[in-house]
């Protein structure tokens, strides 16, 4: 298990492409109204459950995120 904060910067959690800084302004804007879909560390598609209040996203390798 690698801590999530070490994962930031590797893959875009919205589109799953390499998250080179500054190249995903559209994704960043869209994420205000969307949960993440890809694990930022390993690029796996996560199992995402949106609830009326909040959401959870699970990577089989790197665990759960909540928002």
């Amino acid at each position, binding site marked *: 298990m690698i801590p999530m904060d070490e994962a930031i910067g590797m893959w875009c959690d919205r589109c799953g492409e390499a998250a080179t800084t500054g190249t995903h302004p559209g994704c960043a804007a869209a994420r205000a*109204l969307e949960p993440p879909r890809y694990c930022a560390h390993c690029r796996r*598609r996560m199992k*995402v459950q*949106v*609830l*009326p*209040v909040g959401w959870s996203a699970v990577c089989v390798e790197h665990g759960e995120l909540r928002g």
Partner: protein
Amino acid sequence: MPEILDQARNQVLEGGVGLDQAGVLAVLNLPDEHLTATLQLAHEVRMRWCGPEVEVEGIVSLKTGGCPEDCHFCSQSGLFTSPVRSVWLDIPSLVKAAKQTAATGATEFCIVAAVRGPDARLMKQMREGVAAIKAEVDIQVAASLGMLTKEQVDELVDMGVHRYNHNLETCRSYFPNVVTTHSWEERWETLRMVRESGMEVCCGGILGLGETVEQRAEFAAQLAELDPHEVPLNFLNPRPGTPLGDRPVVEGKDALRAIAAFRLAMPRTILRYAGGREITLGDLGTRDGLLGGINAVIVGNYLTTLGRSATDDLKLLDDLKMPVKALSATL
């Protein structure tokens, strides 16, 4: 004042008779300079025939993603390269979601599944889930599970589901451009059975799928013919990986004109803001729609995307002096 608005004032506001397809089209074609007057009239119609209350609803996805159908706007179809994965919600989480929804003052909780129609596993999950909610939460339960058989309609009635959502999505003439795995008529058939069962019919759709203004008017007229208890109005939020993923969002003014026109076609229906309003209308436009024919909202998040916070919406209703419909008024 354009002639169509004079006609609508007499026919819809005074008489309670909705505009027909030609009338709706005339409203949709009004230039921007008449938008304020159009919204004002639609608001008067809503106040006259529905009253000031706003119905508040929360929705939750019981089964997300992996749907075998190909609705071109939908991130939950398993046929596209959408990143949405299949996931099931467990019953304790479902009950918790219902509680959180009820805590906002909402009277409606709609359980949704991304399926062509329910199978035995989904019906079992529904039976247990609805019973658990009814045992613990004071809220009306609605469902949206795709196309139903007559037996499934009866089962849902038996569970105490009081309203069923099944959107026609778009007008009959445009539907084959949006969905190829089932027909508009199949959807209509489910709606017919729901109506016959005594459940309330909830049926709306999505604007901005590429339909023409004429087809938007056609859709309003077809919904008016169905005469649903509730019409949820979505605006396309283009989803990555879907065939409509690159479509532009509906212009704010066109969205507001459509809200007013749908209200003038259906003076008595519950006209609900559903998905896409955040990106199409923003905060200001949301307010304009509530003063232009809308009398219901979905609060909180949607099925795969997030919404404005319920607190913001409830504050807006408070500012507009629109009371939230109470549970006692819905029973």
